[in-house]
């Protein structure tokens, strides 16, 4: 059974803090994704990675960066958190392009 695990369910951070969201998958998947989920906007892709150290910007990369040093781990970094980054963040992985994506349980981030 594929497991995608996000390190925190809930986070509260202050404006201007550097925030790290961690995601680990245990099925040797090539692709990993970070989305944010907002009511009425659906899931918007922030970044995705198709291999170690490889990354591509998604639709809303501004204010975010990512790191993939190992195949199983994909980190999302908020360089300087702002209140408009308050959201639910979802990590996902898939074996290859066009195969099923498996999602983590989500991290609810609140920036105050």
């Amino acid at each position, binding site marked *: 059974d594929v497991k995608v695990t996000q390190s925190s369910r809930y986070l509260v951070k202050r404006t201007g803090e550097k925030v790290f969201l961690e995601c680990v998958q245990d099925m040797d998947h090539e692709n990993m994704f970070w989305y944010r989920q907002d009511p009425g906007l659906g*899931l918007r892709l922030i970044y995705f990675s198709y291999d170690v150290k490889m990354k591509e910007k998604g639709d809303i990369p501004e204010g975010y960066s990512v790191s993939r040093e190992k195949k199983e781990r994909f980190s999302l970094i908020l360089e300087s958190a702002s209140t408009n980054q308050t959201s639910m963040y979802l990590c996902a992985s898939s074996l290859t*392009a066009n195969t099923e994506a498996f999602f983590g349980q989500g991290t609810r981030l609140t920036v105050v």
Partner: protein
Amino acid sequence: AQRVTQPEKLLSVFKGAPVELKCNYSYSGSPELFWYVQYSRQRLQLLLRHISRESIKGFTADLNKGETSFHLKKPFAQEEDSAMYYCALSGWGWGKLQFGAGTQVVVTP
């Protein structure tokens, strides 16, 4: 540009009634289309994908390339179908998985 449109934010249906969730897409090549579902307090999960042509939990979806649509249908809605449904698109060899805004389905007894 690639785009997935789900025009309905909320669908409210009675138990036993048919339900159809609309999804339209724009993509210049041959896309892979998916429906994902998120039940209350559960993680997002795959419901079905067009290439498998399966019926999952009584749901079916047909890819209409002429109308660039991938509507999800079920002839008789059940209360356990209440959830948020997302249509998603991935291009072959592309890897990026793009979602629509989602449709909340509420099935009332």
